[in-house]
């Protein structure tokens, strides 16, 4: 039961909402109309706005914002669910991955395959040479572009030393933590979030759980009941069951000026939010997002975690800063993306059909004229330490990159107009090149293997020239990838990991396995979210 200031009691909220409502307006308050000119609101300014809009006789019951949001969530569950799933698809269908391949793209693909088949049948020798050249160019161009980005990114950002914002001038900060089957890592997550150096009354932490994930929800409830900086949002079952859908569902309830997404196993550096605010304040409003660096706290657990660390160190310490410096659209990395909340809402949040919704969001931001910059603060995560888990995760990433590429290449002309020539080329090399390299690599090794096993001349085709091209191309490409991997930990001084970079060609073969799996999944189960299991590492210390 609720009481107004005069002491009158009212029924439980879910039974007395008015029928005609404006969800966006309520969420902006937040407030919620009850019966008979009675409203639920979080603060006095909102109450003033209510009276201005509904008349001076409106009566207001004050409750904490999280309770008002909870009431709105219960009342508008269906509408919120629809919005989480379809907001982007309905408002910006050209950016939605709900359609995997458009009719135009399918036609081009079919024609290309037909032409290739004819060429193979008519000119097998030339076809093999041409194929080897095309794949080598794709493979090596991606490697060369990464090297270029490394050189561009190896400079301190001009705003890394942004003036810290005084505590009393800090804004509210929302933190979204989508959780699914993560009960075992949540205590550590709560500790890491409590350790953030930020005023508690300005923290708005949403633990987003799936309604049918009872274990995780139970732990989340316990955490929220012990500490009021946390609140739990339950996402009703539905498809696609993806992280972006969960984030979209929760986003309307964020009341922070800025919003960040963390994963369940994340351990952000305590000053990360303050650094983000300082950098946002130092940059124009057109900078809608800051991507923090990611790395691992179990880097040295085994060979796979070491290679994963080299991969991440290169990506977040060099390549993304390189994209930042060159003003090339930046695919965001799954966590520690800090947004201006308003900008996030303006572009309709994440694409729930894209399994790398973060990467897609980074490109979309660039296409509407907003920028993503990097933030010099690290969030430590758990590197997956077994091959099966790693393969599922990497397959999902590569599948998501394929989705993202297909979405933004529906109209190359529009992409070129939005991103500029540099951004267009960068997108092809960085997003397209990432999965194309993974797919090209085994074909090139295949030329070598076939020529070694059966000789370069068979009755059907001579692989002599293709083999030479493959050898040189693989040497250059793998050499570059290995060297880049070795350089990855240089900035952090983790040079004991550098020698492992020599095994990058083996790691790239594993990535190729993931690439093939990703392509297969794109065809068979495009929206399937391969869950990465967390909490299985044997070491937990921060590196």
């Amino acid at each position, binding site marked *: 039961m609720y009481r107004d200031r005069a002491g009158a009691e009212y029924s439980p909220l879910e039974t007395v909402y008015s029928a005609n409502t404006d969800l966006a307006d309520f969420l902006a308050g937040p407030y919620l109309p009850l019966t008979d000119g009675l409203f639920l609101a979080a603060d006095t300014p909102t109450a003033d706005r209510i009276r201005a809009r509904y008349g001076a006789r409106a009566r207001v019951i004050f409750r904490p914002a999280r309770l008002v949001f909870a009431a709105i969530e219960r009342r508008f569950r269906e509408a919120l669910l629809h919005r989480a799933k379809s907001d982007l698809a309905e408002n910006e269908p050209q950016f939605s991955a709900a359609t995997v391949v458009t009719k135009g793209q399918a036609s081009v693909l079919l024609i290309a395959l037909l032409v290739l088949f004819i060429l193979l049948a008519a000119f097998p020798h030339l076809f093999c040479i041409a194929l080897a050249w095309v794949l080598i160019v794709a493979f090596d161009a991606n490697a060369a572009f990464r*090297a270029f980005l*490394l*050189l561009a990114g*190896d*400079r301190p950002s001009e705003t890394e030393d942004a003036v810290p914002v005084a505590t009393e001038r800090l804004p509210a900060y929302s933190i979204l933590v989508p959780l699914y089957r993560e009960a075992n890592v949540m205590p550590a997550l709560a500790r890491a979030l409590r350790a953030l150096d930020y005023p508690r009354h300005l923290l708005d932490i949403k633990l987003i759980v799936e309604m049918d994930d009872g274990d995780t929800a139970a732990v989340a409830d316990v955490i929220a009941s012990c500490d009021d900086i946390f609140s739990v949002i339950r996402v009703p079952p539905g498809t696609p069951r993806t992280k972006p859908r969960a984030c979209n569902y929760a986003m309307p309830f964020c009341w922070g000026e800025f919003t960040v997404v963390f994963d369940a196993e994340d351990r952000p550096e305590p000053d990360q939010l303050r650094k983000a605010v300082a950098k946002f304040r130092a940059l124009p409003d057109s900078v809608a997002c800051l991507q923090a660096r990611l790395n691992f706290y179990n880097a040295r657990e085994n060979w796979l975690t070491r290679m994963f660390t080299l991969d991440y160190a290169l990506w977040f310490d*060099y390549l993304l800063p390189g994209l930042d410096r060159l003003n090339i659209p930046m695919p965001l990395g799954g966590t520690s993306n800090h947004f201006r909340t308003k900008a996030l809402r303006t572009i309709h949040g994440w694409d729930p059909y894209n399994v790398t919704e973060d990467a897609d969001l980074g490109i979309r931001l660039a296409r509407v004229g907003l920028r993503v910059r990097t933030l010099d603060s690290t969030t430590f995560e758990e590197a997956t330490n077994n091959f099966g888990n790693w393969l599922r995760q990497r397959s999902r990433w590569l599948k998501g990159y394929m989705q993202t590429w297909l979405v933004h290449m529906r109209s190359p002309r529009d992409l070129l107009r939005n991103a500029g020539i540099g951004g267009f080329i960068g997108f092809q090399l960085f997003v397209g090149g990432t999965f194309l390299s993974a797919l090209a690599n085994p074909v090139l090794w295949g030329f070598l293997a076939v020529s070694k096993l059966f000789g370069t001349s068979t009755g059907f085709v001579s692989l002599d020239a293709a083999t*030479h091209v493959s*050898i*040189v191309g693989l*040497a*250059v490409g793998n*050499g570059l990838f*290995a*060297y880049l991997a*070795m*350089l990855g*930990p*240089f*900035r952090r*001084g983790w*040079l*004991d*990991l*550098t*020698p492992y*970079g*020599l095994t990058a060609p083996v790691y790239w073969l594993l990535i190729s396995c993931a690439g093939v799996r990703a392509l297969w999944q794109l065809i068979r189960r495009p929206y399937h979210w391969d869950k990465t299991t967390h909490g299985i590492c044997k070491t937990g210390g921060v590196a």
Partner: protein
Amino acid sequence: MISAIVALCTFLLLVLFVARHLRADYSAGTTAVIVALLIPQVMTALSAAVVPALALALLLAVVAQSAKILAEARSARGIVVLGISLAGTQLATPLGAVVAAILAPVLALHLPAERRARNLGRLLLLLFIPVVTAFVLAYLAHEVQFDPASYFSGPFDFAIRPALFARLAPRPKGLSEALLIGLLAIPIWLAVLRSHRWTASAQVASALIAAIVVCALLARADPLGTYLASIAVLNALSFADPSGDPLPPAHAVALSGLSAVASWLFIVIPV
């Protein structure tokens, strides 16, 4: 005039060596023996080429210092540039491949675990591009008889390059000779091993690289002579490094003698 400059340079070098060895608490006798063994090797180069010798001295200082700064500043860009420049020298001279042979033993430094791992990482970063370039060049030379060095020849290189390439081409015999050159630098490896410091490794690497750069860019004189002389000079400087623990005098004399004999053998052994 040239003879006077040669004499002056030689004299200055001798003064430098004597001062350094005395500062390392070697006796006058030990210092005299070491310098006496050093002189023939140094003269091989200085008598043949004054300009390369002076350029070598300059490059030694500049490259060694820049390598040290790069390492301290954690500049990946600097490491890449250095690696590319090393690889570039191989396009001009096959001697670049020798760098790998000389520095390979350094990778096996017996240091405390963490430091060893870090030094290994740094050295791998420094050597990676030159070594891969050497392999690619060797592959190209073997498979398609492609010698990029021939496209970068200077006007005076035609008389030197064929003999040099014949001696150090990436063939089994050439590689074994390259390894032999590497063996000449044993005192350097010992100094690095004893110093336990990355800066020593960087300086040694840089010095050897600089020698090759000089050979490549100013190859009017006998590049092998310049190269051997630079190793001899570094040997002498290495075991008298006052910042580390100088080698025992007897060891220093023995190594100087070995270095001189090996240098001489290398020059007189026919291809």
